[in-house]
């Protein structure tokens, strides 16, 4: 017992004394072979995805990033809590890294878990500039496993980021090949009746909205750790082992629904923070989120990791097997979901021509904060309750989707699908306290023009959101668009409101489904200037982005006693 105690003490001291790792990363032009196509892209240390950086909690890391490109670059350490100058967002944290230059990041690692890193310059990230971060904890993990793998997903597209952005601006449905066709009209007519179908098309046509508007950018190949479905990433295991899979969604635009047919997964971590374990059959991973799951594989079989895109336009696939060469069946893609009137939320009051000022008017309706609005729209206002979904009673429900939403996920085996409401912190980091104020952020946009904004204002036209060090801010996200937005706050934790008080989970990305209101709270404990944006690459680049300025704090000499005056630009 004494010996053990001594070892523990020693192990505790080690990080303080010895742990100061130095890492070198080069930013390079690389070839990315997805199996479907080969594309010039950007990678780290000569490959995309880049290396898995393994840090130790308590370590002081020094990372030398050499830019071998002929353009500016940057690396953002996604989800890491660090001084803002080290956060890697050009124009906010630092100017960026010039071609040929080596920039040295240096920061203490104050957390553990699964994270990732990526370029925050232009469209380098969708072009391949991303890698994984694994931080070993100082103490023991609150779970056990025999082996672990990073499972980093992405949606590699044959077009470059610039070209995709340009095409979307020219025609927002440029990449949408799931639009409803004449054939769909006739088959739906046969099923539901001609007039019902016609009325349905008229309603949507009247709003100039598309039910099939779920994935803006289709035509990608889903990759796991850089390997396409045919290249089949392989994770080996020994029967009886417990395997930890660190899922990271590094996609530019794609949400994935992940399952491993035949295996139950126990979710133990979300966005790098341990959660009270939840057994699930399937889960949805938003863009830039991470989920760690443990699977216990008892037999000597191969299992398919199957990650279907939320809009079912593509998938990533890998295999867990006891030996190389073994594969399991790859499921068919399920039918593409369609948005319902419930997902339209704010658009419904204005059937007619003028959508110009809908943002203001609709707030009264949305303010109640609940999602009953969608239901009201479906059954009351429209009078065509059965149109989008004949059997409401059997519809799955999830408080994080509008009631009657077409996006509510279900497990393919009929089992448990993870919901945000299942996420509870394993160990609360902050004391639960009343927020000092609320800031409402309406997620706004115009799909037809492919313009995305917050409170109707794009980044370039907006003032920063000003927060005061030491306050606890409650952010109210009101999604007035029909797209799902993964909102990412840099530098400080997003405490997702799931109604569990101090057990509300800590995240770095909060996915907000169409026509829903979601709350998160933030302990403003990181001085400096931070980025805050939708993590869909082309939404952020279109303007769904803000700078957050945290005034005051330990390092500040200016802001002391200045707490009285300023409010955030958005409140």
């Amino acid at each position: 017992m004494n010996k053990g105690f001594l070892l523990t003490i020693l192990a505790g001291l080690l990080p303080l004394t010895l742990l100061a790792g130095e890492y070198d990363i080069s930013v390079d032009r690389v070839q990315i072979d997805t199996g479907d196509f080969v594309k010039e892209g950007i990678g780290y240390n000569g490959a995309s995805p880049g290396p898995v950086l393994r840090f130790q909690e308590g370590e002081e890391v020094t990372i030398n990033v050499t830019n071998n490109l002929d353009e500016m670059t940057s690396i953002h350490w996604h989800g890491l809590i660090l001084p803002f100058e080290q956060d890697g967002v050009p124009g906010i944290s630092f100017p960026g890294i010039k071609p040929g230059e080596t920039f040295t990041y240096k920061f203490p690692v104050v957390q553990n878990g699964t994270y990732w890193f990526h370029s925050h310059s232009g469209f380098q990230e969708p072009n391949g500039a991303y890698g994984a971060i694994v931080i070993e904890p100082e103490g023991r993990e609150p779970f056990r496993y025999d082996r672990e793998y990073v499972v980093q997903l992405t949606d590699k597209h044959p077009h470059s980021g610039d070209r995709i952005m340009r095409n979307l601006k020219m025609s927002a449905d440029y990449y949408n090949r799931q639009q409803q066709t004449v054939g769909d009209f006739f088959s739906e007519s046969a099923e539901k009746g001609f007039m019902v179908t016609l009325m349905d098309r008229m309603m949507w046509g009247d709003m100039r909205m598309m039910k099939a508007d779920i994935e803006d950018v289709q035509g990608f190949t889903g990759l796991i750790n850089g390997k396409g479905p045919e290249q089949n990433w392989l994770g080996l295991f020994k029967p009886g082992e417990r395997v930890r899979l660190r899922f990271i969604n590094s996609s530019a635009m794609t949400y994935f629904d992940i399952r491993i047919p035949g295996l139950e997964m126990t979710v133990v971590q979300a966005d790098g923070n341990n959660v009270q374990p939840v057994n699930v059959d399937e889960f949805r991973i938003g863009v830039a989120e991470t989920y760690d799951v443990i699977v216990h594989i008892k037999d000597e079989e191969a299992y398919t990791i199957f990650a279907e895109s939320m809009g079912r336009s593509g998938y990533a696939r890998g295999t867990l097997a006891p030996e190389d060469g073994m594969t399991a069946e790859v499921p068919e893609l399920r039918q593409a979901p369609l948005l319902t009137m419930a997902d339209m939320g704010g658009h419904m009051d204005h059937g007619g021509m003028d959508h110009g000022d809908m943002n203001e008017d609709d707030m009264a309706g949305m303010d109640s904060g609940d999602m009953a609005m969608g239901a009201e729209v479906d059954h009351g206002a429209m009078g065509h309750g059965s149109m989008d979904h004949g059997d409401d009673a059997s519809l799955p429900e999830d408080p994080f989707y509008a009631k009657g939403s077409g996006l509510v996920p279900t497990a393919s085996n009929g089992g448990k699908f993870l919901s945000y409401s299942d996420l509870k912190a394993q160990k609360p980091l902050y004391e639960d306290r009343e927020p000092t104020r609320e800031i409402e952020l309406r997620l706004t946009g115009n799909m037809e023009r492919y313009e995305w904004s917050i409170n109707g204002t794009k980044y370039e036209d907006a003032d920063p959101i000003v927060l005061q060090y030491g306050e606890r801010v409650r952010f109210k996200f009101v999604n007035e668009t029909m797209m799902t937005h993964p909102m990412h706050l840099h530098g400080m934790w997003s405490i997702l409101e799931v109604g569990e008080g101090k057990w509300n989970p800590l995240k770095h990305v909060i996915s907000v489904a169409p026509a829903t209101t979601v709350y998160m709270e933030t302990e403003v404990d990181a001085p400096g200037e931070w980025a805050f944006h939708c993590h869909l690459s082309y939404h952020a680049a279109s303007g769904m982005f803000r700078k957050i300025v945290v005034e005051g704090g330990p390092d500040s000499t200016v802001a002391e006693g200045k707490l009285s005056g300023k409010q955030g630009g958005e409140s």
Partner: protein
Amino acid sequence: MSRLTASMCGLALTATALATPAIAQEDAGKETQTSRTFWGVSAEKFEYRYSDSDEELAVIEGDAYYGSDELKFLWLFEGEWEEAHNAWETLENQFVAQTPVSDFWDAKAGIRVDTPEGPDRVFGVLGLTGLAPYWFEVDTNLYVSDEGDASVDFEAEYELLITNYWIVSATFETLVAFSEDKEIGVGQGLNSTEVGVRLSYDLIDRAFSPYVGVVHERKYSDTADLARDAGGSTEDWFAVVGARISF
């Protein structure tokens, strides 16, 4: 032609000069995180037409743009090359600035320079373009020529998805003049209509979509008389083959 080229260049330069201060004066930081200006070149129609009276035409209709969400500069071009006369029957170049006025509608203003075979005209243009309910793409313009004549055109297009790659597009175009401009064959009142149906296939993304189709052109009243007097036809059916191109 050289005069046209010169005027085009001049306009393009003016457009660029106008665009620069309006779009690029923000601080450098914001610029690195969002895309601010965009461009595109496309030809909605690039086709060969063969009429029921054995007339052969090459038709091109397209645009190039540069600009931001708030302000775009467009060069719109439309030409009909008549094989028999070896000449441009129609040749229009429009240089307009376009800005959103509501969620689905843009207003535009600029000039139009017509330099076909025969007399040239320069017009002032005021237009509205956008997406009407039920997915009709609409474009309508008021023109006032250097001769003082005013006219209005109206174009609508509807796309019907047979599949997500096979697309039928139906187009309707009409021109109404408020006064006569005999020299260029424009009569007062309803001038002409053009109705087209094209079946296209998206061969390479939406960048190259070959199509076949049928187009019906008709001239009315005074305009029809003017056409007859000039020895032209007043009603034509065309078989068309071509491609929609977009960069």
